[in-house]
């Protein structure tokens, strides 16, 4: 079996191999071609696994830019952002002179990650870099509609990425199957595509987890995927974490994981007794996890994100020590039940909050009043009077998702 992830193995290396989002690709390339000092940055936004990062990486390579990548979820404060990105963005002449290239391109991924409570001047730092940049700047975000991103949206040319359409995703999966010598049923690939919800990364990971090392892929092989709902990549991450043989491997697996830290801790907590057998090592592992939890609690209270590495070290130590006592194979339990309940309603709660803020600001009432006194009536109007609903939506400048929320009939 290959130890290489198919998402890496089949990652496009030229622009012409990037699947889907033709409109976004063309808009981005046009922006990059005409970019000159003083122009807006580009903000690529859309669901995960739709090719935003790949497009920035491949385009920089094809146009001769040296790509400087930075993940905004890791570097959140003004000082940290300016230290990493500031000098590059503002003084680019050295690279051009030395290497006779087009220059550098700065890519800030997950820019929506810096706009939490822990953001200490991060927004201003990114805006300052954009305003003073002498190189093209590309930002990527999953959700650019956070009100805190307002000024950033204005400073950028926004380019939307959509979920990859099923026929295109199927074409990609068929191509991978051919390269790997797998005879896959059309229906099996359709199930994988349906599960992935237009996410290339998920679809490729699902395919690898189901078909790697096999010659055929049938519907019966894929059926167990159906109720899992986009968990294949999470399963892969958990597999890496739990199979770590020593502290270093466990730490690297945790670093590479894109699972939220709190959820990660809960997941480790839920899975440890099913994975490891020796009670004494298990007790020691739980002790380490409890210490990691203390650090995560301090981070939440004080926003001292510098403590995160200690929390991760303790989590890694917990897994590595538990592994010494023997391992048994079992299906990973994810997401943890406690988090699952909250996560299920998070997007809807966020949407409702933004809607109330908008109604409140337009009608000069608090968002609480908007929620209690306005929203119930708006829901009735949106469900029964399309014309009035359209006028209200226009007046309040409601987004599609908000309109959809108001229109949906509540379960009794």
């Amino acid at each position, binding site marked *: 079996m290959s130890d290489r992830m198919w998402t890496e193995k089949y990652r496009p290396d030229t622009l012409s191999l*990037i699947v889907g989002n*033709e409109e976004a*690709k063309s808009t981005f390339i046009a922006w990059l071609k005409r970019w000159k000092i003083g122009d807006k940055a580009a903000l690529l936004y859309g669901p995960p696994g739709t090719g935003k990062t790949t497009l920035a990486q491949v385009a920089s390579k094809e146009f001769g830019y040296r790509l400087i990548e930075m993940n905004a979820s890791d570097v959140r404060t003004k000082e940290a952002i300016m230290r990493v990105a500031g000098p590059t963005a503002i003084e680019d002449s050295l690279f051009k002179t030395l290497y006779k290239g087009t220059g550098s391109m700065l890519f800030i991924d997950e820019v929506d990650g810096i706009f939490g409570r822990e953001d200490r001047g991060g927004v201003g730092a990114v805006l300052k870099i954009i305003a003073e940049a002498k190189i093209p700047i590309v930002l990527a975000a999953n959700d650019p509609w956070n009100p805190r991103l307002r000024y950033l949206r204005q400073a950028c040319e926004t380019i939307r990425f959509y*979920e990859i359409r*099923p026929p295109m995703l199927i074409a990609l999966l068929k191509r991978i199957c051919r390269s790997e010598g797998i005879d896959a049923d059309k229906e099996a690939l359709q199930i994988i595509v349906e599960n992935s919800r237009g996410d290339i990364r998920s679809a490729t990971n699902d395919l690898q987890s189901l078909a790697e090392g096999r010659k055929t892929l049938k519907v019966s092989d894929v059926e167990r995927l159906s109720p899992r709902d986009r968990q294949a990549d999470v399963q892969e991450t958990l597999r890496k974490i739990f199979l770590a043989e020593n502290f270093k491997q466990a730490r690297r697996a945790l670093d590479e994981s894109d699972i939220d830290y709190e959820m990660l801790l809960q997941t480790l907590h839920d899975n440890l007794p099913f994975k490891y057998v020796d009670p004494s090592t298990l007790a020691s592992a739980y002790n380490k996890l409890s210490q990691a939890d203390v650090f995560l609690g301090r981070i939440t209270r004080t926003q001292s994100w510098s403590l995160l590495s200690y929390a991760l070290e303790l989590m890694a130590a917990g897994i590595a020590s538990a592994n010494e006592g023997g391992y048994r194979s079992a299906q990973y339990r994810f997401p943890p039940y406690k988090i699952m309940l909250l996560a299920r309603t998070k997007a809807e709660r966020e949407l409702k909050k933004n809607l109330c803020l908008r109604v409140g600001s337009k009608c000069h009432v608090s968002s609480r009043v908007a929620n209690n006194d306005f929203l119930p009536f708006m829901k009735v109007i949106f469900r029964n009077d399309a014309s009035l609903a359209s006028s209200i939506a226009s007046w309040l400048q*409601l987004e599609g998702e908000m309109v959809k929320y108001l229109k949906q009939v509540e379960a009794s």
Partner: protein
Amino acid sequence: MKVVTKDSFRLPYLGREKYIELVRSGVTYDKKTGTFSIKDADNIDRIKLILSEILNDDIAFAQKCFMCQTRFTCTVCEFSNICGTRDIPLYCICKPCYNKPDFVERYFTRLKSSRLR
């Protein structure tokens, strides 16, 4: 049902308010040709709602086949129930192209020849 092509469509007289609503939702108007086009699909549901009021009929947006450039609607697509971008006017692949035996080769050949640079 009326099929609307994203790049260019004509409308009867709208009146000021409906025109403003459309423009705010991401539709532009070209005075020279007298046609409307959808510039920004973020508010596609709202655009659909307004257009259906103006045309007094259900609206479907035409999809463009990436391979043969023909127009078609999501109503004829076998993936419409699993597609997260249903009825958003974007490039897609039409049924005849998808059902061709050498569809994968043709798709990647077309991708390579799309001349992005």
